[in-house]
């Protein structure tokens, strides 16, 4: 386990294969004497966690610390798995309001399944640094515009290169479900849909075309990347994440997913509290959030959104919490705290931002909890990360200790400014 990977060699291989490559961890690390909350197992009041080569290699009350390992004294601290936000625009939307040059979320056109959301993730995004500093180490990144904006990608919020950050580029197909009450969302710069347009029918036609394409074996280098991209999704191999908001649209999307035989995941789902039985019956997982969203109608209960995660848990519906944001992704733990305040159990709230988001995307073998062999994404804290008062002491992504964020850096710089007269 104590192999010494050659950074350059690893990178070369990764590039040659066109694969994503985890950043190399040069030296094993052991956090000793800390409280350990693995999420996938029982809490360890005082124990040790060891990671090397970017993976967790030992975990327990008495884990062996390999020779040469960096020892982190964990007394009084807690170790949690890095959090995962299954809906973000991290790295592809930096200064949203004023600098279009920093925003790569919305492509022209209605159907863009050939686009890979993470391809332009900027590893040196200042926003990523601030999100990571709060313990969010993994994100599903997805573009936004049109009906099919892109394929969403899972990235680790690491440091150096886009390739190294990539966990899985083609994780799920993102669909902005054409709302019964207002048509699909147009792509950037696109004209408003014609009055008689039927975006759902257009989407169905598109899926039909993709199925016809998938049914025939295609030559290598077929010049229709969009159709090729659709294959694992129309054949039900990979999940399709459908963004919905209202109860009517949730119901319509569930029906549609069944008709289309898709491996459906709901995202957003603000009004899920009105459709709990239907979601339960459909057996569809929910990426719920943000929990900070406003209720949809003025006569909805004031806490309708806050209390929905608790309702989903009560019904046994698999769900994870999402922010749907970039800058606000750092508030993922506080979204979970709001859910906890309004009815979600404390351990379930933590699970909803760690293991559950990994499970729903089928990546829990690699992500989402502290367990042997999983990626070494860890957060060292002074306590419960859902408590805003808790300080995050260290964050490891793929075994590497992350530097301070721009915010921390500027804080220290200006705190040091001499006082005035």
């Amino acid at each position, binding site marked *: 386990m104590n192999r010494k990977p050659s950074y350059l060699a690893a990178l070369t291989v990764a590039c040659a294969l066109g694969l994503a490559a985890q950043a190399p961890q040069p030296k094993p690390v052991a956090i000793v004497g800390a409280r350990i909350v693995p999420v996938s197992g029982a809490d360890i009041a005082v124990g040790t966690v060891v990671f090397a080569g970017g993976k967790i290699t030992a975990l327990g009350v008495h884990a062996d610390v390999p020779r040469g390992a960096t020892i982190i004294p964990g007394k009084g601290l807690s170790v949690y798995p890095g959090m995962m936000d299954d809906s973000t625009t991290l790295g592809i939307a930096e200064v949203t309001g004023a600098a279009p040059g920093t925003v790569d979320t919305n492509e022209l056109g209605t159907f863009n399944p050939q686009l890979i959301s993470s391809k332009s993730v900027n590893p040196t995004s200042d926003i990523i640094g601030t999100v990571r500093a709060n313990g969010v180490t993994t994100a599903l990144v997805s573009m936004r515009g049109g009906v099919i904006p892109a394929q969403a990608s899972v990235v680790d919020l690491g440091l150096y290169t886009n390739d190294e950050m990539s966990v899985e580029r083609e994780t799920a197909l993102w669909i902005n479900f054409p709302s019964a009450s207002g048509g699909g969302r147009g792509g950037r710069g696109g004209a408003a849909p014609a009055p008689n347009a039927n975006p759902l029918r257009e989407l169905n036609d598109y899926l039909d075309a993709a199925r016809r394409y998938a049914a025939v074996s295609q030559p290598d280098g077929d010049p229709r990347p969009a159709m090729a991209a659709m294959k694992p999704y129309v054949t039900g191999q990979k999940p399709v994440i459908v963004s919905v908001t209202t109860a009517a649209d949730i119901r319509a999307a569930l029906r549609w997913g069944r008709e289309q035989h898709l491996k459906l995941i709901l995202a957003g789902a603000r009004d899920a509290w009105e459709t709990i039985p239907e979601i339960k019956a459909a057996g569809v997982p929910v990426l719920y959030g943000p929990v900070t969203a*406003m*209720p*949809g*109608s*003025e*006569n*909805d209960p004031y806490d309708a959104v806050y209390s929905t995660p608790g309702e989903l848990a009560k019904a046994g519906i698999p769900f994870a919490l999402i922010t749907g944001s970039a800058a606000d992704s750092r508030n993922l733990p506080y979204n979970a705290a709001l859910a906890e305040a309004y009815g979600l159990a404390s351990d379930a709230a933590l699970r909803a931002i760690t293991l559950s988001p990994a499970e729903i995307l089928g990546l829990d073998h690699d992500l989402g909890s502290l367990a042997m062999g999983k990626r070494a994404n860890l957060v060292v804290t002074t306590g419960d990360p859902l408590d805003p008062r808790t300080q995050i002491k260290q964050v490891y992504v793929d075994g590497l200790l992350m530097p301070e964020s721009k915010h921390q850096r500027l804080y220290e710089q200006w705190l040091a400014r001499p006082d005035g007269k």
Partner: protein
Amino acid sequence: MRSAILWRVLPPLALAALLAPAQCPRQSYAFTHARVITVSGAPLSGATVVVCNGMITAVGADAAVPADAEVVDATGLTIYPGFVDGFSQYGLPPAPAGRGAAPGRGGSPQAAIAAQAAEIAGTLDGVPVNDPRRYIDPAASGVDSDRVTADLLDPPSGLTAVRDSGVLATLVAPADGIFKGEAALINLRGPDAAAMLIEPHAGEVMELTPAGRGGYPSSVMGAVAVYRQTLLDAQRLATEIKMYRQAGQRGLPPPDYDPKTLPLLPLLQHQEAAYFVASDWDAILRALDLAKEFQLQPTIVGATEAQKAIPQLQAAHAGVLVSLAFAPAGAGRGGRGGGPSPAIVAAQRAEAESTPAALAKAGVPFGFTTMGLTANQTVLAQVKLAMDKGLSESEAWEALTLHAARIVGAGTQLGSIEPGKIANLVVATGDPLAAGDSTVTNKWIMVAGDLFPVHAAPAARRGSPQR
């Protein structure tokens, strides 16, 4: 000129009378053997209504029929006073697009092009873009206090449809603007403004709303500021006039007679009524507050949610003219809380329909206005919705006629069948508000002594081209 129009519209029966020698300066009529809903008193049966010189001269079972009168046998028919519409734009030409827009202040494409050219040149209306007059002291739009509705009257043929619905007189002013101008009280007949006018100085109609012409104000709070500044300016003019007169018109420059503020002096001096268009609860309260700020005696027009403001309306002794459209207050009332659910919207509509009954119960005087009425709503059907919510038959009659007449300042002229009042009459096959009777049709309409036959059932008529 008037006889020319009568020539065309009167049936042969009336024509004969027109040619006969007359004691009245104009045609006189006697409707005999009628059931008469006087509104001012108990209904009469087997009664005669005598009309002379455009006015009612006698009402009663024993009223003498003048020798020269054209007798209309109204046996089996019901006569009721014409409805008084508290606020409408009947008789006004449709507002042309961009009307009132100052050069370069939006509106027509030409104006926009001119504005663009001016902007490139760095000026607008000759004022450089960076001149403080442009960005600190903006010219307000929507102050149309110099507009006189009586001057704008242009009776179109579309009046027939309105008249046939029973609405025979109305307060009119243009719909746009914060100060909409001097209102007029009119009869709905032709051929010209002179024939229509009952009162050319019928009050100022105001609405605290963005002028909707681009420019300033663009918000409700801006509209309030414009209202306040305009009336302050008017107060100042009043002060100057007073000081100038006291000084014997010497030693001081003549007052600054501004055409926008001068017409508002009667309003400030309580010589003229103040109408505020306001439908939502908040808008009503705002209008009452702002009336009070300048000691105006307000009448609320629209008043959809007036029942929620009853204590304040009573405290202000405000008149109320309730829109028969009963339009729900709508989503969020400008708030950003998400709209109400469809059930709530429907309940709001139901509550709007109950506004007249609630006002009646509380003793708040009110009339009706057709403001906002949609093409598929009729006056009588809407009144019946209010009656379904508890408005009594007599209260409905009063709101449609006498109370509306009093609120628009014409209580002695309109709204009931009494000697001395203007002869605005509807002759129908029955009582249109009587429970269970939906077959009533109008046979004759009389506006200020002009008799018009009704050719189609009013129930089939839909709205008016003027709306």
